[in-house]
């Protein structure tokens, strides 16, 4: 207890069913959840969970679905009431809070982000983000100002009056995060926030979360079923199985000393997927021109896509080179762009590991072109994508 602990959970249990006493007896004897359910009809969602969360850390809880991680996180803001055990926030015992205290706690100290976003479709982006301030009684002008700040922090400025239904998944979760942050909570509960997103967007969001966390230094309790995500984001990782916490440790220690076979297997499954190649992070190039196009056409193309370079490809999409906007403007009276573009480019293949691309990416002035066996352009890898995937 040398460090500043913001949340402390002691012997937390959550049981569902009638005959709880009998179930407790069996569970105390170490019987597993399945046999307890069979014998007593009681479901032990969580049994005897104890852990502490340091101020400012990301605490990741990982487990398969049904392992009890969602129940634990919902006990932390009393969306579900624990059957037994104690939960401390700073030094107050939150399971003893009365209605008013709980309300204040939820309004000021802790906020939550949901797996399926939990957004209110009858409100626009701004209305959603301002919701927490609204129930607190903050005046309209003030709360909208604060909400706008949050919206721009998650990169959604210009979208504040859109309906949330019109947003993509990643954007919706940005709204969810902005909404949670608008209240300036000390603790952010995140219940599998990125599970519903596709892998590319998920990586962006993880990156975003990390940068926000570094900036605001919030305590985050993060639920996931993806060990990569847990290891990437978590300062501390707790692994759960069948309602019990099996091991709590830093990712490094957990990798080095798994508590049992179950944990080891979990970590091994991570290593397999951890091997990312260029294919996984490449993007589709936006501006493509042909050698026989005029410089003016190339300029238009680049402007339309707000980029400063265009990829020059032949008839069968084979990469010829890259044209910068400066060159194109300088030579705008030329008949074609033939000879104007740079042909000496960093390239790679789709299956090249990211770790191998890294040195190239560090030096390259332009995004790296990803080619197939026939030299055809398949995509580009930006420096940002390479670096963020390494986190």
């Amino acid at each position: 207890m040398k460090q500043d602990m913001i949340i402390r959970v002691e012997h937390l249990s959550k049981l569902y069913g009638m005959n709880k006493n009998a179930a407790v007896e069996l569970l105390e004897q170490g019987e597993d959840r399945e046999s307890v359910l069979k014998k007593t009809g009681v479901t032990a969602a969580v049994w005897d969970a104890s852990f502490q969360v340091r101020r400012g850390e990301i605490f990741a809880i990982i487990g398969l679905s049904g392992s009890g991680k969602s129940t634990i996180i919902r006990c932390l803001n009393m969306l579900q009431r624990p059957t037994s055990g104690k939960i401390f926030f700073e030094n107050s015992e939150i399971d003893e809070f009365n209605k008013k205290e709980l309300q204040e706690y939820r309004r000021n100290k802790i906020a939550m982000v949901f797996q399926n976003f939990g957004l209110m479709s009858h409100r626009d982006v701004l209305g959603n983000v301002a919701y927490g301030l609204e129930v607190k009684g903050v005046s309209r002008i003030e709360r909208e100002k604060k909400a706008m700040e949050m919206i721009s922090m998650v990169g959604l400025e210009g979208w504040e009056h859109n309906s949330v239904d019109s947003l993509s998944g990643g954007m919706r979760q940005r709204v969810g995060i902005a909404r949670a942050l608008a209240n300036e909570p000390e603790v952010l509960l995140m219940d599998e926030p990125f599970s519903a997103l596709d892998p590319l967007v998920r990586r962006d969001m993880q990156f975003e979360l990390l940068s926000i966390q570094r900036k605001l230094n919030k305590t985050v309790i993060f639920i996931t079923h993806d060990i990569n995500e847990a290891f990437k984001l978590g300062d501390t990782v707790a692994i759960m199985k069948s309602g019990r916490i099996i091991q709590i440790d830093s990712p490094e220690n957990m990798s080095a000393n798994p508590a049992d076979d179950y944990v080891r297997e979990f970590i091994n499954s991570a290593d397999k997927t951890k091997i990312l190649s260029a294919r996984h992070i490449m993007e589709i190039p936006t501006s493509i021109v042909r050698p026989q196009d005029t410089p003016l056409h190339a300029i238009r193309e680049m402007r339309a896509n707000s980029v400063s370079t265009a990829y020059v490809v032949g008839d069968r999409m084979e990469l010829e080179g890259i044209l910068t906007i400066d060159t194109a403007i300088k030579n705008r009276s030329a008949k074609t762009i033939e000879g104007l573009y740079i042909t000496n480019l960093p390239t790679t293949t789709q299956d090249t590991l990211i770790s191998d691309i890294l040195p190239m990416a560090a030096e390259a002035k332009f995004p790296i072109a990803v080619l197939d066996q026939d030299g055809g352009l398949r995509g580009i890898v930006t420096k940002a994508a390479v670096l963020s995937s390494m986190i």
Partner: protein
Amino acid sequence: MKKRILGFLTAAVMLLAGCSSQQPTDTIVFADCQWDSIKLHNAVAGLIAEEVYGLSWTEVPASTPIAFQGQAQGEIDVTTETWSDNIPDYQSEIDKGNIIELGVNFDDNAQGFYVPRYVIEGDPERGIEPVAPDLRTVEDLKKYVDVFPDDEDPTKGRIYGSIPGWEADEIMYQKYLYYGLDEDFIYFRPGSDSALSAAFTAAYERGEPIVGYYWDPTWLTGQYDLVLLEDAPFDPDRYMYGETAFPAVRITVTVSRQMAEEHPDYCEFLSNYHTSSALTAEGLVYVQEAEGDYTEAAKMLLTAHDELLDEWLSEEDANTVREALGTGGSGGGTNWFLDFPFSLNLDVTAFDTAVKNFAAQFSSFFDAIKGVLTGLINGVETILNFFPWWLMILLVAFLGWKSSGKIHVGLLYAAMLFIVGMLGLWDLMYETLAIVLAAVVTSLVLGLPIGILISGSDRANQIIRPVLDTMQTMPVFVYLIPAALFFGLGKAPAVIATTIYAIVPVIRLTSHGIRQVDKEVVEAARSFGSTRFQCLWKVQIPQALPTIMTGVNQTLMMAMAMVVTCSMIGANGLGMEVLIGVNRTEIGRGLLAGIAVVIVAILMDRLTQGWFSKKKEQEAKEHGKRAKGGRR
């Protein structure tokens, strides 16, 4: 002549069924027009048919005009109590020979305006003061306008008229005009005979003054002490215009042509079948004693009045009947295999009495509710009356155009409304709308909170669900008449009955809508420290709104569907017009009013629904535009 609409559908179906299978007339079919005394006469005539002529008998329930039609077509064989003056087609069918009048059952009855005796003389036992001591004649009523105030317009008096569609109704209305009662009184059509008797019952049990049409013999005139207001002596040429007293109606025994041909001997007996008001009233007392067993009551009547058999039958046949009465009849034992052998003898009359006493005891409470509702209806009516016809049509056209986005739809709606006006039903439509809207407002005021309550509590849900099921499936008439007992006749009880029926969808769909709001969204709202009310008001209700609006729309439609039924307790409007049309078998009149009901219903449905879907569409479009513009 009594309950009419009730049996309408069943009778129609039965008549159709009868058409397809021309049964051999060994079974005599009696018309059961659903009042007590005709059932008694049927039982007496049926008993003799069984014992003397070896014929079995059965009854078909139908309203008077339906029964009469059925008889003219040979589906019904015998009507023992044909109130000839109350049937418009009576003479023409007799002339055509489709129906044969065999004789007069009794003709010493009376009808006219009745008041309870205590109104004139007071009733020291019940502590009732005489409020109209000099009331003798119909004309005297003018002096006592204040004694009989109208619920809906207290500046006027109320006279309960006859049942819409009866001949007597026309005559009573003429009388009302003839005596100049229209200056101070409202002629209030009660809609059905059961509603009228409920009005008399309620007033009598409370000891309140009431004046209205009634007739004798009935159980009501037997049970309560009513006084017939005097009128000018009967004149055959003038009574039709309401200027004199009624003649006694010739209540005849009639048979179908087929019956007369196939059973001349039995018809001969029927032609001798004479009774009197007094005898009928006595028989009805036996019915009470026998707890509603008409056959038993018939036996008691024949035993007590042995001489009737000699009047009606030959000596030999009369003795056959006497023997049967002595041995308890040749009914034979119960067939335990086919007939349900057990019976629970519930004292339903005690329940009736309890309800009546309850109504009387808490009359001030019910009057308060009635006052609120009457105020609401009048308020709605006042608002409606701000819109003259042309403005309303323009408004509907405009709303139709705006809600559908097509101008021709607006024009179509306007044309439909125009048709209602051209049918001469504009004012009635407003009256109907006032009731419907008042019922919808009441339904929403009560239904939304209840729906919200049961969405949040499983226990409340479990308790209220069967209640809702009951409200939706309980036949309307079961509570329509009690509503009249508690709240009198007219628009206020109509709103209550309509609310009971129409409130269900708004409750169900409110609850359903709130329950199906995404669980995570609700969790999110709670996780930000929303109070329960904030959660409900800012999240759950807005999220459930489309479903709730569907409920509101359904409530509106169901309220509209109750319009005709409610006219049976005297709610004026389009429904009354339908009722009058049906009661008189004036099919055209009923149909026109029916079409108006349909038009109003369609307009309300389309306008409310169109508005919501339009709003949604618009939102979607705007989002689309913004989304395109906003993409980086």
